[in-house]
């Protein structure tokens, strides 16, 4: 693991969330340090997206505490999260099809000049940002509707970086991407770590996770099901935690020992 700060920049303590009859999250714990990539894995419906949305202020938590740089904070609206320095790229990208790339990148934090939109500076910075991230799109002035899925994904990630956040959350950023674009996104994640940002990366792809993550947190049926440092952990161990498969050599031995001691 790379050097991480002592106090986590973001920490979740015993967070629970329910939707009507569905208990989506139960007593979830999570810590992210500056310069750390935390992978959040779990089966479909495990509650990963819900967890992301509680951090991002889309769904306020029902119970539990969110700590930011050691202080307990209330995140009730997306603005609260943004204000702290949490940027989120959602699984459903939620871009405005009718706005162009610049408009989407700066939506909600437009640059002003004499009180009116400073389109020139926004366009210039957009081009610079996309260039430093090696993002290739035909033009920053075409509507999002005319971009491919992969191009939308990188625009959405670039959008998250505009506000100079301290923590970036990526919900399945590579799910819809081809080989080359996946590699680009993973490079991007490493660049974020170099810039000492905390990154929460949600992914289904073990190869992606082991390639860039420092720590893997497993979520199962809305509960923590283990946290592993990537170094020294095998894919099988992680997958076992994801599927809840107890039928392996380790658990059998544990169970036998438990019986023997009784």
């Amino acid at each position, binding site marked *: 693991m790379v050097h991480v700060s002592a106090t986590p920049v973001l920490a979740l303590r015993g967070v629970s969330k329910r939707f009507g009859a569905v208990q989506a999250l139960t007593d979830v714990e999570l810590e992210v340090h500056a310069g750390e990539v935390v992978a959040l894995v779990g089966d479909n419906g495990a509650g990963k997206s819900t967890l992301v949305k509680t951090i991002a202020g889309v769904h306020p938590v029902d119970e539990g505490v969110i700590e930011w740089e050691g202080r307990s904070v209330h995140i009730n609206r997306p603005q609260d999260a943004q204000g702290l320095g949490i940027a989120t790229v959602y699984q459903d990208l939620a871009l405005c*099809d*009718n706005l162009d790339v610049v*408009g989407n990148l700066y939506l*909600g934090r*437009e640059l002003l000049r004499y009180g009116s*939109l400073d389109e020139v500076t926004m366009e*210039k910075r957009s*081009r610079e940002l996309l260039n430093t991230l090696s993002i290739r*799109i035909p033009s920053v002035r075409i509507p999002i*509707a005319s971009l491919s899925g992969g191009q939308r994904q990188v625009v959405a990630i670039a959008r998250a970086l505009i506000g100079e956040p301290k923590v970036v959350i990526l919900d399945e950023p590579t799910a819809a991407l081809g080989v080359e674009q996946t590699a680009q996104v993973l490079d991007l994640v490493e660049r974020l770590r170099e810039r000492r940002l905390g990154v929460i990366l949600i992914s289904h792809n073990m190869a992606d996770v082991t390639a860039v993550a420092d720590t893997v947190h497993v979520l199962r049926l809305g509960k923590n099901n283990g946290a592993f440092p990537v170094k020294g952990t095998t894919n099988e161990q992680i997958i076992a935690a994801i599927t809840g498969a107890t039928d392996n050599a380790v658990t059998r031995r544990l169970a036998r020992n438990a019986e023997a001691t009784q």
Partner: protein
Amino acid sequence: MSDKTTMHQPLDEVPPPAVAPLDPRLLVREEGFKGYLTEFKRKMKGGELGSLPVIVALIIIWTIFQLKDSLFLSSANMVNICYFMAGTGMLAVGLVFVLLLGEIDLSVASVSGLAAAVFASLSVTHGVNAWVAVVLTVLTGIAIGAVHGFFFAKIGVPAFVVTLAGFLGWTGLMQWLLRGTGSLTIQDKGLLHVLGQRSFFMNQSIAGAYILATLGVAALLIGSLIDQTRRRAAGVPYRPTSEILVRTIALAVVAYVAAYVLNKSAGVPNALVIFLATLVICDFVLRRTTFGRKVFAVGGSIEAARRAGINVAMIRIVVFAISGGFAAIGGLFLAGQTYTATLQAGTGNLLMLAIAAAVIGGTSLFGGRGNVWSALLGMLVIQSIQTGLDLLNMDQSIQYMITGAVLLAAVVVDSVSRRTQRSSGRA
């Protein structure tokens, strides 16, 4: 917005190493006239019709009416069209805001009728100062719109139902205000004097129309050149000077011909001047302010807007308040045409005309696409038809049928162009 995609790369831009500044797949317009033509064809195929259908419609309509009645294109009749389109046009401006959200406001005509009654009852019956009465009337419209917006945004009632209820309710309130007399005569003073049929810019002076035309053309030219300079300095694509000149000359031709024609009669009606000034301000608000950007964002994707921290409910309430305010202003314009507030104000096909104007002008019913200039273009079409049919002494029944058909045609064009844009990845 889409036309910016065709702008040329600045020649002096140093491409960053290893990153090509332009994707080879991007369709960059060729230089010169041929470039415009290819660009034009590509846009048509992609369903980006822009203002083309409305300009074609206008030419057809003017040709037909001119053939039927040689007075149609006369200066006096053009002054007529320009004067009478301002009132309904104000309703259409408010509707553009609502349509950009992808919603509809069915109450604007009824609110405009109520506004006339409120103004008359304040200024005539209660002797309130004419200007104060104007302010109170517009505030009434804004408050009514905010109420509609509240029920839509906070309670979740579909906008068309809220405003349909408003349509009936506000008509009732107007009838109650005018109970007994049935109509009130408004005095020819204050703003209502300016809005009258005999009120012209700079007192009918020939210079007036040319001053306005020059202002418009100069504003476009100077604005474009400043923008070009800033963009060039920042190293982002800019419009080439040739294109700026073509655009400026196109506007100049239209503006000076219009000024010449209107000057042959009495000049530019003040109502039109106020309408045009309103369009300039609203265009600025929609395209150059954060509020305008938020309106487009909500019209494009509510979820994306919400996640970007935009207060969607507030934007909705404000937009409906704007619509109500413009409905009231439009009501004052319409009252100024006859100096009366009557039970008939805001009835008939006024609502349909205002909606048709916004949609014909190119603002989509589906939200997120459009601009306030569509209120001007659409009103030109609508008012030309109205005035033409009046010239030909057509019965109201015929007028209704034609208005209905025109609205349907506009909506069909909107729907078809949206479908084409979808399939070519532009919507």
